[in-house]
């Protein structure tokens, strides 16, 4: 299971703050999130962390990873 923690507007759009998804083999972060978050691609700036380390949307995750994603929009 990939554990996904969604923050900010992503949590709102996906309708959950935490999700667990089963994937086979490897999958690109963007592909995975596109399926879970409506209008995902309309967000230009986002922070993606895989197992606590920053990553880009084209990084790959596998079944044991923990993914955290937030649109860095709010605050200022």
């Amino acid at each position, binding site marked *: 299971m990939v554990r996904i923690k969604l*923050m*900010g*507007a992503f*949590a*709102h*759009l996906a309708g959950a703050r935490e999700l667990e998804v089963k994937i086979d083999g490897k999958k690109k972060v963007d592909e995975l999130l596109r399926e879970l978050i*409506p*209008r995902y691609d*309309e*967000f*230009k*700036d*986002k*922070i993606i962390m*895989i*197992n*606590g*380390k*920053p*990553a*880009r949307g084209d*990084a*790959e995750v596998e079944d044991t*990873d923990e993914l*955290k994603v*937030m*649109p*860095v*929009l*709010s*605050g*200022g």
Partner: protein
Amino acid sequence: MTMKGWWGRILRVDLTNNKVWVQEYPEEVAKKFIGGRGLAAWILWNEAKNVDPLGPENKLVFASGPFNGLPTPSGGKMVVAAKSPLTGGYGDGNLGTMATVHLRKAGYDAIVVEGKAKKPVYLYIEDDNVSILSAEGLWGKGTFETERELKKIHGKNVGVLSIGPAGENLVKYAVVMSQEGRAAGRPGMGAVMGSKKLKAVVIKGTKEIPVADKEKLRELSQEAYNAILNSPGYPFWHRQGTMAAVEWTNENSALPTRNFSDGSFEFARSIDGYTMEGMKVKQRGCPYCNMPCGNVVLDAEGQESELDYENVALLGSNLGLGKLNEVSVLNRIADDMGMDTISLGVSIAHVMEAVEKGILKDGPTFGDFKKAKELALDIAYRRGELGNLAAEGVKAMAEKLGTHDFAMHVKGLEVSGYNCFIYPAMALAYGTSSIGAHHKEAWVIAWEIGTAPIEGEKAKKVEYKITYTPEKAAKVIELQRLRGGLFEMLTACRLPWVEVGLSLDYYPKLLEAITGVKYTWDDLYAAADRVYALIRAYWVREYNGNWDRKMDYPPRRWFIEGLKSGPYKGQHLDEKKYDELLSEYYRLRGWDERGIPKKETLQKLGLEEVIPELEKVTKLE
């Protein structure tokens, strides 16, 4: 005057001599400085020279811009500016208020107040009729009650700006307030107003603002309003507004915690946007805004308090307070007393750390809500030794107590809600902001985190690295041009662009529809650079030429300590590398190695008249 979009008229008020008149200003100035911050900087440069910030000679400027009073997206802002009693340099701030709508409808672009009344007064402006009325019955009252009382007298359909006891008592970070939650002028604009014995300004305007192309304006605005509502980020913004930031700053070691000694807080969850949602009773906003972000909750004393991220970061985690209803009490007190929530939070945190380190004997420690509240009120009324000391702000406290190593300020203005142990670009943004450590100009931290370098084959093996690439200096300038320049001159709220991604292209188009003047992006950037150079010149002149690059350094704490916890524990900024980044910033701006604009830069920006005056205090390159 034949201009469209600008009145070309400034209302002048001299409280010493009880005189009111109208000054017309040239079209060239309107075009060059646009309005808001630009107009204010131009006025202060010309008129507030070597003045005592709290003396009658200082000028208090309320400046609007072409967007105000017209249906423009989130265009209900106003800039309040003066020489700052907190920093001794240029000071300003913006707030959303009906006062800006009425000011423009009354036929003015700005008000400049000088002198000092003998007894407390307030201004009542109804189009061309301006009266200076007694405010003796209002003096001592909080800003909430003051506004309510004034509306009882003048009707609900007016704009009101007022100060509370903090401004009256010359607390160095007193602000000007409106509509129970909107504040402006972090660097003590409220104290300047108090020093003039001006309790409030009430404005009612009924004129029609001349607009170049009304139909185009209506069309563009409607389109922009719709784009805001249809943005994917809108629904969540509507729920939490800026409060959503608690979650991600905490995650990224950027949440100010216990006087910025750490970047994450163990009780962050109990002061975050989700907790706020459970307490929300209403939502307030600024005029002409269709994405209102003032989240009003009931505080621990059953009163309404309007929260945003900055309030909660600085009066919550930064004080070690983890109960949002208590944090809301401090926030409401600050608003009612008319104090800046950020500077108040950082000042109280400074006291707390000094008490914990045994430097001060009595006073609150981190997490002590009751004593923090007492101190907040003591500050507003300047009661007791500690209240009086903390009312002077962090820089003055550090000078008195020798606590520079944990004094969180730049140029005397306390740091706002982003802890920068691992964020050099954001530290540079604080270092080079026009008023001291404020985030409104280059809020670059989101970009800095989002573009952190990824190395190696697999992202998950890579550590976040602190980098000082030259692009960071360039990005800070780009954001300063937009946020500290364009939006502050229009004057409009930047949040539709920042938070829900409204296209920037709307802004020059709207400006053209209003004024009939075509501005290219190069023109707008030049105007922003002009204002930055002029404000920098102002600081250098007011500091009598005693200026060097250390003025643009962030607080020492970020160089000498590390984060206390989290994945980046122990990491901090590197002074030498920061200094190199600063040099890059100066190079791009055309400023010398001291951070003073070069002669050719001033000439290029159309600021020739600044040169001889600056040369009186320093040698220009």
